[in-house]
């Protein structure tokens, strides 16, 4: 019998352990992300103010990529106050 891949099992266990009943869906996260990012750009701590958004970003690679790309884009524009 093959040996199970430990790292994948660990990843899965972490995901199971962190499961919570109030997780946001991708679209709910997407609806909140502008506010989350604007707080971040204002030097506030959105992870504390909007923990469910942060939780979803920690779990969902697609949403996290979109958040990071949007943050980069807005940082570029920030100086111009567009």
């Amino acid at each position: 019998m093959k040996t199970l891949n430990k790292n994948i099992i660990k990843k899965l266990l972490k995901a199971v352990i962190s499961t919570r009943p109030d997780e946001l869906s991708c679209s709910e996260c997407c609806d909140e992300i502008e506010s989350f990012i604007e707080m971040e750009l204002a030097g506030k701590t959105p992870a504390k103010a909007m923990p469910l958004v942060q939780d979803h970003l920690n779990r969902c690679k697609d949403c996290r990529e979109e958040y990071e790309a949007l943050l980069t884009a807005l940082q570029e524009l920030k100086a111009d106050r567009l």
Partner: protein
Amino acid sequence: MIRWFKNKAEKKATPPYSNEEWVKLLSEPANGEAVKHLRSILIRGLKPALAKYIDRELDQFVEDVAQDGLLKILDNVQTFRGESKFTTWAMKIAVREGLTVLRRKRWENISINDLKGPNPDSDSGEIFSDIFASDEPDPELTAAQKMVMEKVKKAIDNILTEKQRKVINAVMVHGLPVSIVAEQMGTNRNNLYKLIYDARKKLSNEFEVQGIDPKEMLNELSDT
């Protein structure tokens, strides 16, 4: 007289526009100058945002994404809720557009049915176990660690549906984007996320029923 005031007010709208001005200027018939201005904003933001994903022809790609994003923004301008700056909302649409194109391109030749993992024609969970397997035995594993992994494997095989195993295989094992897996399965990101959520919940419940603490299992697997 009213028209004179209206025209005067419209002429006053110069960048940077307020949210209200953006919505007004981009509503049909869209104001050409405002469209041009938004396009230049999108391009300026998209370049650094997408640069790490593209190794050549970034400028052309960004131009195309900005154009497609712009069309989506114009189509949806009335749905802007005003809870953020208009440019934040618009940039979000453009960024999602760009990343969607990039994901499709990156994974265009990969089918979730071809990934090493469960045989879609089989209802045997045993086949799925190979996803979590390496070809070589790991001599570093202790007997306790092997036992933990066997418990997890059994739970996966016995509790999850074929579809859940397939999705976990694609997303968690092979790292495919949720959006790509959703497209291939003819569903959307929300439904797919829910499917993964339900799988996690089922495993959590199963461990609870069996009196197994997943935190203890995780600790057992940690290299400390």
